[in-house]
């Protein structure tokens, strides 16, 4: 989802880009794809966000952070949580995927590849540390609901893999 597609005003986008997911501080909520809409209405910026996972505890914090980011810029903001259409990992921007890899989180594969990877059938998840494909699934569930835990058999580092959600 690019900024153009979301039709969000440049000034509003810049402020939204300063807010990040507290669990993944390198990724702005815009690159994460959780911002669905934002517009100015009678001096109040109305922002719609969608959760990555239903139980994601980060959503409350993200809502508060959005309001405080706008307040710091002298603007009032209101945040609304929308469920439909449901978030998908496809909404993570190219920039966002790069940021994830750099932070040490393997970015989501396509839905079919993801299934093979999470069933441990194929070695296709690339280690974000050394780039090796010689990796193995440790657990389908990782440090947060959106990630699975992997380990690299070459550099031996454990790492998170961002699960595909479609």
């Amino acid at each position, binding site marked *: 989802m690019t900024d153009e597609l979301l039709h969000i005003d440049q000034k509003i986008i810049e402020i939204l880009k300063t807010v990040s997911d507290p669990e993944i501080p390198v990724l702005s909520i815009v690159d994460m794809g959780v911002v669905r809409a934002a517009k100015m209405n009678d001096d109040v910026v109305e922002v719609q966000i969608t959760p990555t996972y*239903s*139980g994601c505890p980060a959503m409350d914090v993200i809502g508060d952070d959005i309001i405080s980011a706008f307040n710091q810029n002298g603007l009032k903001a209101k945040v609304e949580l929308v469920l*439909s259409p*449901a*978030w998908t990992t496809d909404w993570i921007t190219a920039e966002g995927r790069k940021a994830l890899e750099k932070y040490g989180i393997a970015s989501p594969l396509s839905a079919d590849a993801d299934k093979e990877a999470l*069933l441990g059938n194929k070695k296709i998840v690339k280690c974000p540390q050394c780039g090796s494909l010689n990796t193995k699934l440790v657990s*389908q*569930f990782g440090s947060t609901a959106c990630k699975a835990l992997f380990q690299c058999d070459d550099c031996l580092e454990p790492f998170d893999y961002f699960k595909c959600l*479609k």
Partner: protein
Amino acid sequence: MNNNLIQYIFGIADNCLILGQRLGELCGHGPSLETDIALTNISLDLLGQTRSYYQYVAQLQGGDVTEDTVAFLRVENQYLNTLLVEQPNTDFGYSIARQFLFDVFHLLLLEELQNSKDENLSAIAKKSIKEVLYHKRFSSDWIKRLGDGTDESHSRIQTAINDLWIFTDELFHQTDADKAMVSQGIGVDVTLLKTKYYKEVSEILEEATLQTPQIEYFQKGGKQGIHSEHMGYILTELQYMQRTYPNMTW
């Protein structure tokens, strides 16, 4: 009419709440770090789904009702979850068997609920399906691993499946609220899911070298608010803070 809708939502949402609470009991007590994290992640998903349903109920009921009052301030016979989800963790085999027997049903239900005429229920279902796919994959995987594992794991998972089997039929019972919602195109006719459910469960059990129980006697009651003894203990823990310190907030 609204009342039927609310009762219908409780029939779905309370399963998520109570199973989420049961799984939450395992936080820090799982048999290994990875399964501990997995089970509590599933718990978190289920509680997240519960919140979406209860927020909708609060909106329908209006007034002072919030998702929290719905979750914490009802009495036992107002919770409409099935008996299956309130069964205790007992051991890892029971937790996995309960999860598996529920996940297969849960996914079938949500796949139909996403076509509901009610926009809110349809949106929650579409969101939840993505999560429940992972739950089902996890529990089916463990059913196979334990069934096709050692003699000990095989016998214990078989025992758990046998013991919990009597609670599966209730998943397909219809209450009056269910029937009313089905007739309006809002609810899912669960009776139509039954054949598919038992077929799918049997296939996975067979792959796990386990026997599908041949039991004709089934337990029911939860959907009418008549629960097993376990429910009182679950609610005592779940509601403790609100009952001890009424209206307390974070």
